[in-house]
């Protein structure tokens, strides 16, 4: 999932016509999500990058939406904050009906898709890739929406770098009805690889769990990393100047 070169947008209408977001400022990196036996697990780190600077290190990119869903966002944080305002209002109005019904993950995902796609059509996207997971009436749901409105559901999803680094791991190792422990270990494996290989990753993450009982988001924690390969000790011994 890619965005067209920003410079092309200028060809289709003059600058003065309308406001359009040309590029993001404070950004979050990958979000990874899987279905497991009891529900859904999402993982995201807590970094808010400002260009190449790792500026904010305690940004919550996983948020609960009502009683049944959790949203994870990558991309521009200010746009995510705006999306959350819209979602909180949606949930509030839903609760005000007081009719015993509540918006489930499928409905929320659809709402997000419409929001993102309609903004994309106006050439003023919300610069985010979102993961929406939830459980309602025993039904597990895991979906994703991109900034141009591409949306789909699957047993495992990822955004950003996660598409390239996490999804191959998930394709290999995910299976139906994983236990909570297996699920967490798999997500942590993905997050560790992202920490090694994604420049904008920070070592402080949260894992969110959604089951029929409810939604919870873990407190922030850091992962151990391994650097003790013998090949790392003296890699340029036989070829000085190389790396």
């Amino acid at each position, binding site marked *: 999932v890619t965005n067209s070169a920003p410079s092309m947008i200028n060809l289709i209408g003059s600058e003065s016509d309308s406001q359009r977001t*040309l590029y993001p400022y404070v950004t979050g990196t990958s979000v990874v999500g899987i279905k497991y036996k009891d529900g859904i697990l999402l993982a995201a780190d807590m970094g808010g990058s*400002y260009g190449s600077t790792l500026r904010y290190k305690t940004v919550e990119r996983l948020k609960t939406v009502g009683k049944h869903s959790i949203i994870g966002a990558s991309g*521009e*944080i200010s746009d995510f904050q*705006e999306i959350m305002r819209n979602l909180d209002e949606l949930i509030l109005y839903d609760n005000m009906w007081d009719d015993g019904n509540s918006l489930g993950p499928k409905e929320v995902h659809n709402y997000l898709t419409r929001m993102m796609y309609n903004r994309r059509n106006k050439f003023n996207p919300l610069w985010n890739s979102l993961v929406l997971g939830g459980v309602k009436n025993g039904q597990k749901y895991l979906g994703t929406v991109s900034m141009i409105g591409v949306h789909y559901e699957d047993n495992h999803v990822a955004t950003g770098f996660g598409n390239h680094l996490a999804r191959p791991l998930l394709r290999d190792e995910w299976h139906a009805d994983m236990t909570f422990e297996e699920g967490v270990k798999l997500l942590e494996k993905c997050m560790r690889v992202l920490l090694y290989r994604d420049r904008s990753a920070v070592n402080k993450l949260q894992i969110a769990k959604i089951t029929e009982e409810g939604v919870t988001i873990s407190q922030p924690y850091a992962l151990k990393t391994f650097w003790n390969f013998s090949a790392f000790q003296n890699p340029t011994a036989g070829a000085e100047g190389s790396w």
Partner: protein
Amino acid sequence: MDMSSGDLNAPHSMGTTIIGVTYNGGVVLGADSRTSTGMYVANRASDKITQLTDNVYICRSGSAADSQIVSDYVRYFLHQHTIQLGQPSTVKVAANLVRLLSYNNKNSLQTGLIVGGWDKYEGGKIYGIPLGGTVLELPFTIGGSGSSYLYGFFDQVWKEGMTQEEAEKLVVKAVSLAIARDGASGGVVRTVTIDKDGATRKFYPSETLPLWHEELEPQESLLDILSTASPEPMIS
């Protein structure tokens, strides 16, 4: 498409160093005093810490025009809000008003802001509002081009629950360090400390600041050095 200046889309910070720090009982806001137009220093004694209400101030960085107009609008709205509310507005409301302007005009504005103040509900609070209009409530935050030189410094020395004196000393030291290395920051260090009793402005001219690496003690004139020096002061 201008290619010579590299990646035009990377966020870039502009002239200034601004800091906001919470302590046990309030907040300290700090800034340098240099406003530049290109390479020329247009104002060497500017005041970048602007009042929004009696209990809320804002540090401005980036475009002087953009930050001033945002402050003016927010001050105007807060004034009316205070009258309607019947009591001092909260820091959170001030920060949210700034957010509305920054976020909804993100394509036109180039200003990074720090909102800091004290209210009776939450005490001292600092909100960072960088380019794009993200709002983050933080124990401390830094901004402006000079802030690049302070990330490591704050990572090392920051601690929760400082006293007012510790917090003020930290802010002054930090702005002073940034001024030493950032060409776009300079002049004097200004601070505003806000607690339950209100806001206090302080001013630190360069003589009061410590000297850093490779900086020399300022002298009136070489002639003074010569007169007090040993027989062979002029080295050939």
